[in-house]
């Protein structure tokens, strides 16, 4: 009956813990491994121009849907300009305006993006384009080429590829030659192809962007062809007809509009500068969670002040130590002083490191015990005696620090980090057990405590575990579930197997 409640509760806790964990890991992209860094590119676009006499209006197309990338942040720098964002069809446009300006002007727009394969193109399906209005004799040329290509293709994709082959033919037919006569740049070429696709009632548009690779002082904008096959957008290399998109290709804007337009200015200069750097993956995940309005991130430990974070980095490992404690005591059957004394000792080991921790702990307890036996002869009342032991422990810590400093062993100084009250209680309890049950029992429990402390220290010292728990504190729910289950473990302890050995052989 109770057993079932425990199972159900443990299952619920595990499911809650693991689902929050999975959500943060898979969806928000929190890293499960420490020091995971994400490549981030900052693209800075600078618009330079000379101001004219009147009002100035600058328009810049900026990224909106960027398959393969997510925006980390964006901002613009412009002195005295009013800034607004417009959403013309299929894109985003930044607009700066000022009534009057003198001399050369520079406007910066900066965006940081990072790679994310899950950033899909969530674009709407476009309507079939209206038949373009084309004048003769071009219209005939278009019609002939389109019907030619249609005969050699099966669907939208193959049509596009075939069309691009046609248009790129080094020895073009008269129709293609006519169509190509007005093409002066790759953009013109893509624009012409788009028009021809429209004539075939295939939605298509020009996209322009550039590859993100390392530092680029001036990134070259490349036009690309985007064709909708009724289901999704597909990308075609306008030069070869292959269906692909370059690696790390950031789509800056779509359509045939120019990138920048400056009204009331002259000598417009424009360039993209790309800079690559690395950011902590956690910071990016948090950013993303904020953008998605996820409340979870408000409860992230990374939002706490750095110093508090450091405290929690340690505190959150205590449940791990407690789990080790449960395993050692209820599954193995190790004897120890106090319930959590070994965990606290393990915490002190974090600062002293293992070897010195064990040495200093043993030294402190041994010295403390011998002085405690001297105190026994004085027949002090209980509370004053405990206080005396505590004071002796403090003095011993001081002594060990001073002596080790003199000997040039600075590690000895870290003895000050031991929880002195816990040590004093350990000494007291050990001495009582020593008197009552003999040295063997006292040593037994003493070494048991030390062994648990060492195991707890090893478990709590795992960097990956520390990172995991700190980034995903909800995993503590899973640890709680394990502890609950352990609380209903009714099997034998490991040491009981040898204790009852003689009964098993019967």
């Amino acid at each position: 009956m109770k057993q079932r409640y425990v199972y159900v509760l443990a299952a619920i806790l595990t499911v809650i813990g693991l689902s929050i964990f999975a959500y943060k890991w898979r969806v928000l992209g929190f890293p499960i491994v420490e020091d995971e860094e994400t490549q981030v590119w900052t693209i800075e676009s600078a618009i330079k121009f000379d101001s004219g006499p009147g009002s100035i209006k600058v328009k810049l197309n900026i990224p909106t849907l960027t398959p393969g990338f997510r925006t980390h942040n964006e901002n613009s720098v412009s002195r005295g300009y009013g800034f607004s964002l417009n959403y013309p069809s299929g894109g985003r446009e930044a607009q700066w305006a000022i009534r009057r300006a003198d001399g050369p002007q520079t406007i910066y727009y900066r965006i940081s993006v990072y790679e994310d394969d899950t950033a899909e193109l969530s674009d709407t399906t476009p309507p079939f384009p209206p038949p373009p209005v084309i004048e003769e004799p071009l219209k005939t040329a278009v019609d002939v080429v389109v019907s030619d290509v249609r005969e050699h293709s099966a669907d939208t994709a193959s049509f596009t590829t075939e069309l691009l082959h046609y248009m790129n033919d080094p020895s073009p037919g008269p129709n293609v030659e006519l169509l190509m006569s007005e093409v002066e740049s790759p953009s013109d070429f893509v624009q012409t192809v788009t028009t021809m696709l429209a004539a075939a009632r295939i939605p298509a548009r020009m996209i322009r962007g550039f590859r993100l690779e390392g530092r680029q002082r001036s990134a070259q904008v490349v036009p690309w062809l985007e064709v909708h096959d009724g289901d999704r957008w597909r990308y075609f290399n306008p030069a070869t007809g292959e269906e692909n998109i370059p690696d790390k290709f950031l789509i800056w804007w779509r359509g045939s509009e120019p990138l920048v337009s400056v009204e009331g200015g002259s000598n417009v200069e424009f360039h993209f500068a790309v800079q690559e750097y690395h950011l902590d993956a956690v910071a990016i995940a948090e950013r993303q969670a904020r953008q998605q309005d996820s409340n979870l991130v408000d409860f992230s430990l990374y939002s706490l002040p750095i110093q508090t974070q450091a405290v929690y980095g340690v505190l959150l490992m205590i449940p791990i130590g407690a789990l080790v404690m449960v395993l050692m005591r209820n599954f193995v059957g190790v004897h120890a002083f106090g319930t959590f004394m070994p965990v606290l000792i393990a915490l002190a080991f974090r600062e002293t490191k293992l070897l010195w921790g064990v040495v200093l702990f043993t030294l402190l307890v041994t010295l403390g015990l011998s002085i405690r036996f001297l105190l026994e002869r004085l027949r002090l009342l209980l509370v004053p005696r405990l206080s005396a032991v505590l004071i002796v422990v403090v003095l011993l810590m001081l002594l060990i620090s001073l002596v080790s400093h003199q000997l040039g062993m600075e590690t000895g100084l870290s003895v000050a980090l031991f929880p002195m009250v816990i040590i004093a209680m350990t000494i007291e309890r050990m001495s009582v057990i020593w008197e009552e049950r003999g040295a063997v029992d006292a040593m037994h429990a003493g070494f048991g405590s030390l062994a648990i402390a060492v195991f707890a220290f090893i478990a709590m010292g795992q960097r990956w575990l520390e990172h995991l728990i700190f980034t995903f504190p909800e995993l503590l729910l899973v640890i709680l579930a394990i502890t609950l289950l352990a609380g209903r473990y009714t099997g034998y302890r490991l040491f009981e197997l040898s204790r009852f050995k003689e009964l098993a052989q019967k």
Partner: protein
Amino acid sequence: MFGVAKQLRKAGILGMNERNADYIMRYNPRRLYPLVDDKALTKKIALAAGMAVPDLYGIIDNQGDVKRFGDIVADYDSFVVKPAQGSGGDGIVVVTGRSSRKRDTFRLASGVLVSEDEIRYHISNIVGGQYSLSGNLDKALIEYCVQFDPVFSEVSYQGVPDVRVIVYRGYPAMAMVRLPTRASDGKANLHQGAVGAGIDLGTGVTLSGVLDSHIVEDHPDTGALITGLEIPQWDFILEQSARGYEVTGLGYLGVDIVIDRELGPLILEMNARPGLAIQIANQSGLATRVERIDEIHDPSLGPAERTAIARKEFGH
């Protein structure tokens, strides 16, 4: 390793985790613990139920009263000082007599002479809570020192042997006698090196003994045979133990009884978390027996009837 666990399971051996989770937590409600954790209280309720207990000479429950110790024991040559909330026999001092030259010098069971001052210091430690389970302030009980029955004189080294009966839901389930040794410093506690000998519930005759989880046939100090001793007034002992269930309400109970040569069996204390070594002493598993009791359990029966059933069920 798993093979051993399987064998133990088959032999019906009760493990610590199972004892705690399935029996103590289920049948021993926490609110009843004070009845057995405080020996002064246990003595009171046992007396009220008409059970025989060692005579109480006095209780010292604050540091100011420690000086009253001399007056309390003025008329007695032998007595026992014990913490009311101690566990496992810790903190118990057995005084068997006084020095013939100085009346305020006492002889302990071990033969060591101690001054009244030293005993007062010990009492003050008890009152301060050194031996109490919770570390809280405690009381020191000063009571009659049992003159144990001669049946045990050959098989105990100093100290007082006692009989431990595990009572499950009112039925005696298993019993052993605990014999002090030199190693246990006269204490009847298996942890400290006393010898435990299982007892056939049916006849009250001792089986083989256990020392440090090993099976022994004779006493390590006296060399006398442990097996085959007949415990006197066995039926009465079991019935008194069974009645411990009515008195305390605890379903998983350890009852400790000493047999005085004149007064007969006296209830010394009761324990809400009795140990598991009794299984080794009896070379038999407790799990098998408590499961059997679960089957035959009948709440309408009285202690005497339950004892009779248990003797029949678990006799060899």
